[in-house]
């Protein structure tokens, strides 16, 4: 049977509502007051984009919400979506010293959302671009988090940026591929609009290679940033994979982001193949859209699951089932032309390799199968667009991790296509780093400077504030006296 939507508009909206609703002003001030305003806060160091977290939190306490949002957005242009989608438990909040003191960190993510909502809802123009432009033009290929991070930084450095985006709207996974209860497409698009207001030009619905040759871009622009992300979902290569109710996880999630929620078809019994965070996003949303049964099918054990612990807990709370150490060997249709179930086999892991246990096959009934076994690298696309571009063995672009510079002069890269698939915040940080790298190239500088401002000054020990060692005024006076030959 073809799958159909399961819930009415109200039930679907209620199930997909914000998992972490926005703070009220009172909640925000109480939570913000828990921050100790650390000197060299570990949370800053744990944030890939180096947001000055204690500063933005302090500004919430003083009622300076505009300044708070500015502190966030100047470090991370996608601070609003990162506030919602970052795995804060393993980043800033995992490093929070209050966690050590009380067992419960300051809720940095939710506070960050509180501050950025203030700016984005009011369309505040908080970031500035220089009046005098450099005259340099940069093409950003891919309008996802990496591309946006790069474009926003370049615009603030005075360069002209054109973003080429294959889809009709920019934002990449932020617009199309994050669990709906974490990030709404309109919030992602508000960020895109903010970047647009910095003078960045977006050419959406334009696929480089098809609509415009890569060579032409290289000719027309002074530098190119590649933020293409990953490709289509990987395949299992089992019989039945082309049945109509077999969908890729990201396609399923994209439907949730492009249709009214109550019109998204979902199975009655849904199997999600895979053990990563995308698998969790898929199983949880299937459940929330009305699937009676939704199960994670993972070929290894629970301990091996790459999904974060808190994500697994969320899925379990939503009523999802977990089938560990099983692998699909066939997607069954019983001659109906539609998915009727999965033939599964039990597995054992030996030396890190998964082996199917012979004779262990069994059948479970499902009417929809969601594939979340990772996305393919874009090896073919890169070969076609930039034949000279050096790729790693696993198919990602080789680049200098500080500057984003690839082996091709003037071509930079960052985000999933270069790191193999990490968090949104990593993509933004890499885009920002590449922008600094491009800026340094234009300026003829070798180094692009640190992404995180250091509070220590020069590295080395012991260190003091701004000096390479603690220094007393009397010492400075002595040095001054020596230099100026004062007795």
């Amino acid at each position, binding site marked *: 049977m073809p799958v159909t939507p399961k819930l009415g508009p109200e039930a679907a909206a209620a199930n997909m509502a914000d998992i972490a609703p926005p703070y009220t002003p009172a909640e925000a*001030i*109480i939570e913000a*007051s828990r921050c*100790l*305003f*650390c*000197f*060299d*806060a*570990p949370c800053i*160091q*744990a944030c890939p984009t180096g947001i000055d977290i204690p500063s933005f939190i302090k500004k919430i*306490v003083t009622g300076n919400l505009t300044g708070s949002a500015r502190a966030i957005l100047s470090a991370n242009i996608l601070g609003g979506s990162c506030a919602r989608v970052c795995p804060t438990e393993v980043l800033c909040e*995992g*490093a929070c*010293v*209050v966690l*050590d*003191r009380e067992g419960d960190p300051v809720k940095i993510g939710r506070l960050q959302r509180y501050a950025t909502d203030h700016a984005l809802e009011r369309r505040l123009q908080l970031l500035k671009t220089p009046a005098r432009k450099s005259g340099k033009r940069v093409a950003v290929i891919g309008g996802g988090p990496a591309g946006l991070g790069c474009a926003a930084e370049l615009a603030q450095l005075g360069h002209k940026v054109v973003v080429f985006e294959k889809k009709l709207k920019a934002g990449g996974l932020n617009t199309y591929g994050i669990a709906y209860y974490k990030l709404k497409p309109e919030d992602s698009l508000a960020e895109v609009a903010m970047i647009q207001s910095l003078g960045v030009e977006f050419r959406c619905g334009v696929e480089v290679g098809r609509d415009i040759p890569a060579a032409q871009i290289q000719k027309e622009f002074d530098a190119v940033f590649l933020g293409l992300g990953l490709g289509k979902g990987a395949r299992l290569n089992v019989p039945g994979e082309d049945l109509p109710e077999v969908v890729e996880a990201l396609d399923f999630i994209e439907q949730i982001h492009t249709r009214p929620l109550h019109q998204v078809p979902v199975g009655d019994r849904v199997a999600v193949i895979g053990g990563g965070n995308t698998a969790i996003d898929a199983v949880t949303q299937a459940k929330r859209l009305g699937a009676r049964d939704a199960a994670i099918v993972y070929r290894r054990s629970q301990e091996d699951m790459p999904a974060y612990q808190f994500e697994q807990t969320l899925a379990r709370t939503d009523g999802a089932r977990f089938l560990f150490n099983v692998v699909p060997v066939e997607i069954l249709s019983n001659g109906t032309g539609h998915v009727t179930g999965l033939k599964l086999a039990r597995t054992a892991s030996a030396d890190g390799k998964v082996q199917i246990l012979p004779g262990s096959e069994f059948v479970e009934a499902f009417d929809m199968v969601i594939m979340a076994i990772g996305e393919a690298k874009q090896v073919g696309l890169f070969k076609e667009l930039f034949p000279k571009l050096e790729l790693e063995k696993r198919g990602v672009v080789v680049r200098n991790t500080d500057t984003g510079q690839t082996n091709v002069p003037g071509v930079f890269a960052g985000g999933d296509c270069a790191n193999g698939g990490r968090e949104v915040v990593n993509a933004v940080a890499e885009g920002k780093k590449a922008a600094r790298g491009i800026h340094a190239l234009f300026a003829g500088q070798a180094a692009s400077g640190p992404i995180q401002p250091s509070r*220590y000054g020069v590295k080395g*020990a*012991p*260190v*003091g*504030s701004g000096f390479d060692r*603690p*220094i*007393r005024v*009397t010492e400075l006076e002595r040095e001054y006296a020596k230099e100026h030959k004062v007795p």
Partner: protein
Amino acid sequence: MADLSINLAGIKSPNPFWLASGPPSNSAHQAHRAFEAGWGGIVWKTISDAIVNTSSRYSALNLGTLRMAGFNNIELTSDRSPETNFREVAEVKRRWPDRAMVVSLMVDTRERWHEFVQRSVDAGADGVELNFGCPHGMCERGMGSAVGQQPTVTERIVSWVMEVATIPVIVKLTPNITDVTQAARAARKGGANAISLINTLNSITQVNLDILVPEPEVGGLSTHGGYCGPAVKPIALHMVQSCAADPEVGLPISGIGGIADWRDAAEFIALGSTSVQVCTAIMHYGFRIVEDMIEGLNDYLDAKGLKSVTELVGKAVPTLKKWELLDLNYKRIARINYDKCIGCNLCYIACEDGAHQSIDLVPPNSQGLGPGRVPGKPIPQVREADCVGCNLCAIVCPVDGCITMVSIDQGRQKMSWSQYQEKVARGKMKPIPAHP
């Protein structure tokens, strides 16, 4: 169970906790509720010729999420008639004979003072408190702090009162004066039986930045209000101790100023108060707070092995000396407990920017992991030779017991500034070199 009962210059109460003269002690209704909750005494809101108050009267200093860290008011004395007040005083005293009933008074002429004292006696009051402290409204009419700020006037009015008083007389002192002991001595000279302090401090708690008028705003204007609440406690403790330590004062004290719990009360008592008076904390939380005050003080006295609260009165007074008598050879330094350190490095930046540059940030231990969970994050390390023992790092440290100030025995004899000056003058020692 320690004995909490007290006797302040002849005024007895089952515990030292009294309502201070103020909004909570304005009516029989409130007094009944307070005594039901367990308060040992009440100083009735100041009775004077009936006044008229403004609308909008209070304002507060909020610190972060802490409300009413400081509080001020521009209310005057009781807005009820003397007749009503004295009638209710009598009613309340009849119903609660074991509780202390003190009536606060504020009038102008000798005749009026005589009349109001007599009416208090007639109402059955155990004592009167002369309000020489109100810093707003009444002082402009030659009463309140206008009296308390001039020792000669204080003395004269006290002596008027003593001409007729047959019950103990407490003089309430204003802190809006350079040396409170001068006012206390004047009260003594006038014949007062006890003093109470502090009244409220002149203040402006905040300016409304939208309309640029301070709070409390009264039709686009404001006025200086009387400041009280937890924020004034340190000032009050200083003044209470000063009076307690002054042999020329030598009067029992009722302590007032920011008392909100049993610890505050115990500190006031240790610095010389026999009873303590509470107002702002009641305005914040109601009369029920006395329950914990009684229980907490009781348990504290038991733990200290004190049989009666009177044994605590003034115990800490002698440990407070003039600066010149402190031991210059006493040395303490900060020690950081790395098992407790959470890596906020507030101690480092406080010392570096705000004190004596004696804490270094150094690489963490050999594993490259320090507090704060970030590999390689520097940890604070006290340079003990340079540490002056100022306490700042221990004060800013957000973890209890993480930084302790440790006394270091340097094997040197005690030497106060006075002794030092004397030794230098006699050529017995060279001046200590200035700090580099």
